[in-house]
Each structure stands twice: as C-alpha cells, then as structure tokens.
C-alpha cells in the first residue's frame, strides 16, 4: 500500500523531472507519452490505494525534511477519506486533461516544457492533497503557484501572457503570506505542524480570539489560491494560458485548493463562529460578484473563469455553513463539468478559427455536433438544470444555508439563489451567443484533434451523473459522500415540504434565467460596452482600484527607495563626504602655490604658534 501511495506522488514528479531535464532530447511523441502515462499511472495508483483511506485513513512518513530544535517537518502522507476523494478527482481529471492536451498541444514546438510543467503541477497539487503537515502542504501550495505562473505565461513571447502569469503568482502569493503566518502561529501554539495533531488539539483554543485570527488568516490564504474576494483579480487574466491549463489549474484543481485547505483544517476553522461567518460571507459575495461579471464578458474563457470564481464562492459558502461534504460535493461535481466546459471551449475556439470572442462566434452547432452536445452538457450542469450534478451539489449548499434558519443564513440563502439565477442566465447567454444564429466571424474552422474530443465524453457523463455521489434522501439517495467523509452531521434532515420548496425554488430560478436569456439573446445584438456593462466587463474596475491603491504606491515606494534614499540620501551623503574631503584638499593645495615667500609665511605662523604657546605656558606656570 505504501508503494502505491508513494507512486501517486512520485509518478507525476518523475514524469515532470524527466521531461524537464531530457524532454528536448527525446523524439517527439515520447515526452507526451511520459507525461500522460505518469499521470494515468498516478490515477491508477490512486484507485488502487483508495481502500486504505477508509475510516481513519493511512499514514506514511518518508523522510525528515527539516529538523531543527523542536521543529520537525517530515515528508509524510496522510491518506484519509477527504484526501482520497480529492486525489481521485485530481488524478482522474488530470489524466483526461493530459490526454486532451496531447491533442491540443500537438503542433506546439515547445510542448515538452508544457508537459513538464503540467506534470509538476499535478505533483504539487497532489502534495497539497496528501501532505500530513502544513509545511509540506505549503510546498505544494507554492509549487502549484509556480506551475500556474509558468503555464499561464506559456506563450511568453506575448508580453501580456507573461504579465498575466506574474500577476497570478504575485496575487496568490499575497494570500500565501497569510497562510505562512498562520503556519508560524500554529507551530508556536502547538509545537508541531502536523495536520492531525493540530486538528486534534484545536479544541484547546475554543472560544479564544486566537482561533478566530488563525481561521481568518487561513481564509485569506485560501482566498488567494481560490480567487475569492478580495484576491480574485488574477483569475480572469490567467485565461491567457493554454486551454488545458485553464481546465486543469484554473477550474478543476488549483483554485479549489483553498476550499480543500479549509476542509482539511475544518476542526480548527469551525471553532470560530465569527470566522465561519466570514468564510460564508466571502463565499457568497464572491459568487455574486463573479456571476455579475460573467454577464458582460466577451471572451468565452473569461465567462468560464468568472463562473469558476462564482462556483468556488459556493464552496466557500458551504464551508462557512459548516458542511464539509457539501463543499467537497460541489468541488467534485464542479471539477467535472468545469473541466468539460473549458476543454470544449478550447474545441470551440479551434472551430471558430482561434477566435475567443463570443461576439464573433455563433452557429457553432453547424461546425460540430459533438462539441455542441458536450458543451451543452457542461452548461446545464453549471446552470443547475434539475437532475444534473450541479443541481444537486448547489442545492445542497443552499439548503444547508436555509436550514440554519436564522436571519443571517437566510440572507446568505437569498443571495445564493440570486446568484443561481444569474448563473443560469449567463450560461444560456453563452449558449445562445455561441450556438444561436449564424457564424459571425471570418476565420475558417480548425478541426479539433480526435484526442480533444474523446476524453470529454467521460467528463460529460461524470458531470451529468456525479450527483449520485451524494444523492439526498428526498430522491432515494444515501448521501454516500457524507458517509465516506464521516460527516453524517452534514446530512440535512428537512421536512418534505421544505425540501420541495427548495427544489422548486432551484428549478424556478433555473427556468427564470433561461427565459431571460432566451428573450435577451435569442437574436444577437451588438452593444457598445458602456456604463454598467463596461463596469461589469472590467470586473467592477477592481483592477484599476488595486492599481491605484496598491501597485502605484508600491512603485512609488520603490522609486522613493531607489532614487530618493539610495541615490539621494546614501549616495549623496557619501558623495558629500568625498566632495568635502576633496574640496579641503583643493583648498590646501592652493596654499602650496609654488611661491617660497608664501611657504615661509607658513613657517612663520607655525613658529608663532609654538613660541606663543610655550611662552604662554611659561608665563602661566
């Protein structure tokens, strides 16, 4: 079992390292085989070892990474039900995306770099999932950040792409700082950074401010990676990366790492009601914010990016409501249908002749039936069409909020429903704009590789059917996921009336959104983005705000330090000292003007000085 577990991690790492070091020397398809094979191998290892995770889970310590004083950080794995679910999802989705990428990147001259980074990403992501201590988790945490940086800026010759990568790295790193601070604090409190020990001893902190602060720090850390308010501006820009990257990193896995972190440390986080409320609030606010932004986007991938942000907001809401299984449920279903959506979007972009803008699409159904059906499958899941997985997972979260009963949670529920309506609206807007009417662009289609279609099928099936994982009692399910995660308390026990009411609301908002989109976008109308539309398109102008509030002062501080202090004060001081010395020297030089007479005056003054001094002393004494 240990071997299998190690293989989960080791295979993608080895694949990445081999590709990074020797990829360019290997004949063309070999790096792709290595990359894809290693991830599929990892998935198989994951499947093979999943039984070990049942119950308490399985622990494995490989070696000591850092040990100093009373601080120890092992490279150790904790394979518990939560990790197992996540690992399965990550490796599974990653395998499919690798296959897709093999087709997508076929003609790219630099594909070894791509696959090396992608493999390393999978390794880093799995490290987050499996780490048994926070430092190792942090390694993965930063590792995914780096891979995301490298992959967003993969087509580096365009400066914007590289800049988007840098933005993603830096913004997520702001969140990482808070995580790091939490890590330091936790070690100072507990003398260990083992996740299990911390969770086990978290109760000691119950009711203190410390735990609230810790939870808030963790929340901020999670916000960075998961693109939640206020650290969300990087995600739309990150769409500059190749589509498989968007699918894997910025939809299915990395952005959900924040949710995973909060779930992983849930016993700690849940001790603070205040922090829980904050998490829920951040979640729902982001969900609403992103949904509104998605309404106005032009680029297909940006729509999806905002929808991702929005859906992750739901997951945060779930965590904030205290329902780990709801969060994980939505995380998994979302991973399936969002990966599907991104990859079909990639196919659509190819079909539209490498055109991103949905205003230049339309009538895409004529270009490929298969893509139409696959994209629609994803969209209905996202929009929360009844009986799709998205419906169940989203509904579970909203129901949980509703079930809490108090005014605050009712409010959250209300906002959640509003977001759901918006989601449905922009999903169908997308559908109408992409498939409705006639093709509005000029480019010729570029048929997607077969490898870009087949991996989508399982995802579509999973997306539509994953609702079965945690089917509520109402529909004859047994909430399997909650059981597996040992979170029976997450299972809702609502009266039938309430359940029906909630389901009806959900269906109602879905239909409402559809109808609205149908009315508005059945026929394409070009609009100049202005006013509110422009505001939403720019993501509520947060970029400009941050540029003004953070980036500009930062640059100004840099200029101040470098020009003001460094060259002005310090160099100036030094130059001043030097100049003073030299000017004194010059002054002394003028004394020695070559005239003997003047030299003799020097002698005279010296003599007067000495004689005068002696006479003075002689007289005084």
């Amino acid at each position, binding site marked *: 079992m240990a071997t299998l577990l190690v293989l989960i991690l080791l295979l993608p790492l080895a694949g990445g390292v081999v590709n990074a070091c020797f990829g360019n020397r290997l004949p063309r398809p070999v790096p792709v085989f290595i990359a894809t094979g290693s991830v599929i191998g990892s998935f198989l290892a994951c499947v093979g070892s999943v039984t070990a995770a049942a119950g308490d889970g399985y622990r494995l310590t490989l070696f000591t990474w850092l040990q100093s004083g009373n601080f120890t950080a092992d490279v150790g794995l904790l394979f518990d039900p939560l990790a197992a679910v996540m690992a399965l999802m990550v490796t599974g989705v990653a395998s499919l995306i690798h296959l897709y990428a093999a087709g997508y990147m076929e003609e790219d001259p630099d594909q070894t770099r791509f696959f090396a980074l992608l493999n390393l990403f999978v390794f880093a992501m799995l490290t987050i999932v499996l780490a048994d201590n926070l430092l190792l988790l942090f390694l993965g945490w930063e590792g995914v950040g780096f891979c995301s940086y490298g992959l967003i800026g993969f087509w580096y010759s365009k400066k914007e792409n590289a800049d988007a990568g840098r933005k993603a790295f830096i913004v997520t790193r702001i969140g990482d700082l808070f995580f790091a601070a939490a890590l330091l604090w936790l070690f100072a409190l507990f003398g260990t950074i083992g996740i299990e020990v911390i969770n086990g001893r978290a109760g000691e902190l119950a009711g203190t401010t410390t735990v609230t602060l810790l939870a808030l720090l963790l929340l901020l850390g999670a916000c960075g990676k998961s693109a939640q308010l206020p650290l969300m501006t990087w995600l739309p820009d990150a769409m500059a990366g190749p589509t498989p990257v968007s699918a894997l990193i910025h939809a299915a896995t990395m952005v959900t790492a924040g949710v995973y972190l909060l779930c992983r440390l849930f016993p700690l986080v849940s001790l603070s009601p205040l922090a829980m409320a904050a998490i829920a609030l951040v979640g729902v606010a982001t969900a609403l914010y992103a949904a509104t932004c998605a309404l106005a986007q032009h680029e297909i991938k940006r729509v999806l990016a905002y929808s991702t942000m929005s859906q992750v907001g739901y997951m945060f809401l779930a965590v904030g409501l205290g329902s780990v299984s709801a969060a994980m449920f939505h995380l998994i279903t979302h991973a399936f249908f969002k990966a599907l959506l991104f990859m079909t979007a990639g196919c659509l972009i190819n079909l539209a002749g490498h055109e991103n803008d949905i205003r230049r699409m339309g009538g895409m159904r004529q270009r490929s039936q298969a893509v139409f059906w696959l994209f629609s499958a994803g969209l209905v899941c996202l929009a929360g069409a009844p009986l799709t997985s998205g419906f169940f997972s989203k509904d579970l979260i909203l129901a949980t909020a509703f079930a809490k009963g108090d005014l605050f949670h009712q409010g959250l529920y209300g906002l959640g429903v509003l977001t759901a309506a918006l989601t449905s609206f922009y999903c169908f807007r997308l559908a109408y704009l992409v498939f409705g009417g006639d093709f509005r662009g000029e480019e010729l289609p570029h048929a997607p590789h077969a490898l870009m279609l087949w991996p989508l099928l399982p995802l579509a099936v999973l997306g539509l059917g994953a609702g079965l994982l945690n089917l509520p009692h109402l529909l004859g399910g047994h909430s399997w996921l909650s059981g597996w995660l040992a979170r029976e308390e997450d299972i809702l026990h609502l009266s039938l009336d309430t359940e029906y009411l909630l389901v009806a609301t959900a269906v109602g908002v879905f239909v409402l959104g559809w109808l609205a989109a149908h009315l508005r976008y059945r026929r394409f109308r070009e609009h100049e983005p202005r006013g509110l539309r422009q505001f939403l398109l720019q993501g509520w102008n947060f970029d400009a705000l941050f540029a003004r509030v953070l980036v500009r002062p930062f640059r100004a501080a840099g200029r101040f330090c470098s020009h003001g202090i460094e060259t002005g004060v310090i160099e100036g001081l030094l130059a001043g000292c030097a100049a003073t010395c030299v000017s004194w*020297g010059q002054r*002394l*030089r003028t004394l*020695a003007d070559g005239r003997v007479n003047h*030299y003799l005056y020097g002698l005279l003054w*010296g003599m007067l000085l000495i004689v005068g001094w002696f006479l003075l002393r002689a007289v005084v004494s």
Partner: protein
Amino acid sequence: MTLAALQSLLPQILLALGSTAILLGGAWVRNRQLWLVVGAVIALLAAMTAAFVEPSQTDILGLYGATAYARFCTVFWSLTVAATLVMSSRYVELYRFGGGEYASLMLFAAAGMSLLSAATSFVGLFLGLEVLTLALYVLIAFRYADNRGAEAGMKYLIFGAVATAFLAFGIGLIYTATGTFDLQAAAAGLQLDSGIRPLGLAGWALLLVAVGFKISLVPFHLWTPDVYQGAPAPVGGLLATAAKGSVLAAFLPLVLMTGGNGEIVRILWFLAVITMLLGSLAALPQTNIKRMLAYSSVVHMGYLLIALITGSDAGSQALLFYLVIYCFATFGAFGIVTTLATTTNEIQDYDELRGLGALYPRRCALLAVFLLSLAGIPPLAGFFAKFGLFQAAFRAGYAELAVIGVVASILSVYYYLRPLIVLFTPEERVLPREAAGYPELTLLFFAAVVLILFGLYPAPLLSLVSVVLPVL
C-alpha cells in the same frame, strides 16, 4: 682625540673619507658606474663596520655616542645610501650626472645622517644636520638641465638656511638657559623650576620649528611636495626616508630625555593631529605620484609623532619599527619612479602612468606592494607598523591619536590606490618600453619581499628594534 675615539667613529670616518676620495678620484676617472659601485661598497663597508666592529668607547668627546642605537642608525642609513646608489645606476646615465660628485655627496650625506643620529650634544647634532643638509642642497639641484631641479634646490636652500638659523638660535637659547650643550643635561635643565625656564622653553620652541621643517610637519611642510617633485627620484627617495629618519632618530632620544615634558608633548600632540589630517587631505587631490608620496611622507611623520608622544619603550619600539618599514616602502616607491624615468623626463603624472601596468607588470606589482604597505594593509609589514603604533598610543592613553591615525589611514587608502588603478587602466597609445637594470629590480624585489616577510613574521625586526632602543 684619542685613537679609541677615532676607532669608535670608524664608520663615519669611513664615509667621510670615502666621500672625499671619490670626489678626488672623480676628477680623473669619469666613469659613473664605477664611482657608484665604489660609493655603494664604501657605504656597505661603513654599515658592516658599524654593525660588527665593537666600538671601544660609547662616548666620543661628549659629542657623539656609539651606543647600540647609534650603531643601528648608522647601519640603516648607510645601507639606505648604498641602496640609493645602486638604484641610481640607470638614472645617472640617463641624465649624465657627474658620477664621482654624485656618489661623493651621497656618502657625505650618509656621514651626516649617521653623525646626526649618533649625536649626544647639541654641537654634534648641529654639525651632523648641517653636513646632511649641505649635501642635500647640491643633490636636490643635481639635474642642472632642468628648471624644476633648480627650483627645488632653491626652495630647499632657503628653507634649509632659515631652519639652520632657527635651530642654531634654539640651541643658543637652551645653552643660555642651561649652560651645557649636552643633550641629557640640557633636557634635565629644562625641568628646573628656575627663572630662566621661559628662555629654555623658547629655545625648545625654535628647535621644534627646525625639526618640524626637517621632517616636514604641517605647517612647515609646504616645501616638501615641490622639492620631492623637482629633485631627482633617487634623491627624493633619500629625502623621504633616511634624511627624515635620521632627524627623527636624533629627535627621539631628545624627547625621551625631557621625560614627557607636558608642554612639549602637548605641542607635539597638536602638530601630530594637524599633520595627519591636513597632510591626508592635501594628498587626496594629487595627480603626481611624487607629490603624492611627499604628502604621504608628511602624513607618516604625523603617525611617527604619535609614537614620540607616548614617550614609552613601546612607543620607541613602534617608532623604530615603523621607521624601518616606512623607509623600505617609500624607498621602493621612489625606486619604481626612478626605474620608470625616460630620457626626456621622469614619469610622474597619473596621466602618463596610465596603462603602464600592462607594459611593466612586475614593477607595477611591486609598486602595489609598496603603496599598500604604506597604507597599512595586511599582510604587508606596514600593517604591523601601524598596529604597534596604535597599540602604543592606546597604552599610553592617547586613544584619540590612534583614532585620528585611523581616520588618516582611511583617507590614505584613496590616494594610494588611485595610481594603482591608473596603472592598470587600459591605454591605447603605444608606449616605448624602457628596460630597467637588474640591480635595481633585484633591490626593489628584495624590498618587497622584506615588506611581505615582515608582514607575515615581524618578530625578528621587533626584537632587533627592542635591543637597540636608545638608553638614557
């Protein structure tokens, strides 16, 4: 004058007679190299006599002493003169010096220096100093085809004459106050709390002025850069090393004998401070290596005053050690300038030095050793010299002088490093290569090796110096 006294004065007599003999011989045989060699051999002989022939009496007519200290000084100055003569072998050909006269005057100067350091009475001191000065008047103006040589000679002459008058007046006043020429007695007379004390002090004041001129303390230093610049490079080397050193060596027992007289120490303290600081500042903007070395010699005299002020054994030891190391380094630096001289002129300005590093890598490396030693950078001997000095200053409670010395040596780094960098700056113009003679190079190499060796293991020199300290 007894035979024993003559025997005890043998080194000085050798030098003086040798000088005269060469002057005579030079009238018939116009071979420069020959007379240089003869002169160097005589100086060496004198040095060996001083070192190995035990004098039969230590007090000679109450004028001179043949103590270990005096013998050490004689040896060292004679060797310096011998080295200077060897150093000049190419230089005298280049500027067609009268070989006999040159060597003869050098030996004469050596005799003067050796008498000066050996003096036990004011008469002896005066005589030694004048012998030295008279020889230097001529040597400085030796390049008669050169305006600058004449100018330097004139400047030195006027200052020297005035200083002689000051010295003589000072001696006269002290004699009037104490009634003796004996250094020890005169110094003791100063302690008396008598009515003529002001007279004695005034005499000391004038004496200090004269000494200040000879070792070029600020504000009596103004002649130094001009004279060093105009004098022939080997003579400049002698001026900066032995000529100053011998005066200082004569001054050391004098100050010790006053037993740390408060007034003298205080005025010396003041002179040391302004010499170190103003000398360093004045050296900073120099763009002529000989002027820079002149100011450097000014600053180093300031350092040496620190040791003088301490008035302790440790101080004297530090002073002698420093003096020896300083002489090696300064001699070397002037030696390099000597070897770089061309038929038309000496290479002095930094502009002309540019790019010579590639042309003469060895000599420039040696120059680096000398200048870095002067700057007191380990592992060169200059470091231990400074170390001993500061240490002695600390021990005697003059920490402030040590601190000022440190400030001055920080400034000094700039002006020592500047020519070095200039030397190694790449230069497009094609320069004719002037070969240096092997004797000169060997000598310079030897000086550099000495600086490095004493920098790594100064113990032998330290113990030698502690043996020859002046006994009161």
